[in-house]
């Protein structure tokens, strides 16, 4: 076992763990979502579900399969700087996009009757529940905690590079798995939209 020694100071830009200005945008989206569900009109529901779902899928695929491997090959200082700029935004973007997609999707399926067991493609709908359920468990249990923990580590006067690397690995691997699972979502959703 190596002797314990304080890790060297790591230069990084100042940042907020939860960007407060971004909360205004989140609030606007959430209010719009609540109004959309209350009004229960087809077009806004479809807008929220399709736009949110597309954003969710693309972010997961891009982060997990494109950006993740790139981050892994960056130098430590570059990775730290990138992380301090990306991760606070992800804290706001992903929960907002996921909530908007799922809430509008459930309301849309209730309006169209596609979540009823009498719907001819009910098996595909249940499959989508299962895929989203597994993705939610991974995102809420592994990805989101790693995201927040990295930011807390980076806020310390002397961040521990090994801890950041370990948590970022968890984040990137998890995003990669979610990206692959998004392919299953694409298959199911295009099947349902075509039926």
């Amino acid at each position, binding site marked *: 076992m190596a002797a*314990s020694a304080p890790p060297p100071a790591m230069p990084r830009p100042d940042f907020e763990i939860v960007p407060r200005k971004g909360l205004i945008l989140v609030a606007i989206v959430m209010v719009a979502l*609540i109004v959309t569900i209350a009004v229960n009109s087809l077009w806004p529901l479809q807008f929220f579900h399709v736009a949110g779902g597309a954003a969710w899928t693309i972010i997961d695929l891009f982060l997990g399969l494109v950006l993740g491997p790139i981050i892994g090959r960056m130098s430590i200082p570059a990775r730290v700087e990138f992380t301090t700029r990306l991760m606070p935004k992800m804290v706001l973007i992903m*929960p907002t996009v996921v909530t908007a997609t799922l*809430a509008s999707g*459930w309301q849309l399926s209730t309006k169209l009757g596609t979540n009823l067991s009498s719907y001819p493609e009910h098996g595909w709908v249940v499959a989508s*529940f299962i895929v989203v359920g597994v993705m939610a*468990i991974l995102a809420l249990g592994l990805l989101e*905690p790693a995201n*927040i923990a990295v930011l*807390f580590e980076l806020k310390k006067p002397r961040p521990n590079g090994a801890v950041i690397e370990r948590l970022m690995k968890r984040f990137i691997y998890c995003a990669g798995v979610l990206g692959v699972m998004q392919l299953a979502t694409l298959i199911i959703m295009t099947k349902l939209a075509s039926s």
Partner: protein
Amino acid sequence: MTRRGYPPFTELGMLALALIVAGGIYLSAHIPQHVPLGPAIALLVASALVLAINLALLTRVSDFAWPRFFQVAKWALLAYLFTAAMIEYAFLRDHLKGGPLVILTLSLLVYAVQVPTLIAFTVARWDDSSADDADLPAPGH
């Protein structure tokens, strides 16, 4: 257990989440038919039990960073209570009632507590990481 004797908090937390999600899928998959509530109740009770056992195990960890845990948990709880309220709103908007509404509401409560504890644990366990950076625990927590 790791060097500091941490319980498998993340694994148990994810198990609790999986039980809740399974119950939700089970109920959602039967709409609008009559749903036998037994399996959903069993999954909810099992999830709540796993959550309670997980927190109880964590209280046995010596010198755990509880102030940091509660600092993160309270704000995360606020955020996840909001998302749970959004889902509850959708249920009420769709006139869900009776047993399924009660079970789903309690499931949302477990979810709204479980996720913040997972986030708070992950932050708090590294709270004094600069003191033991040379001896990181095994992966998976």
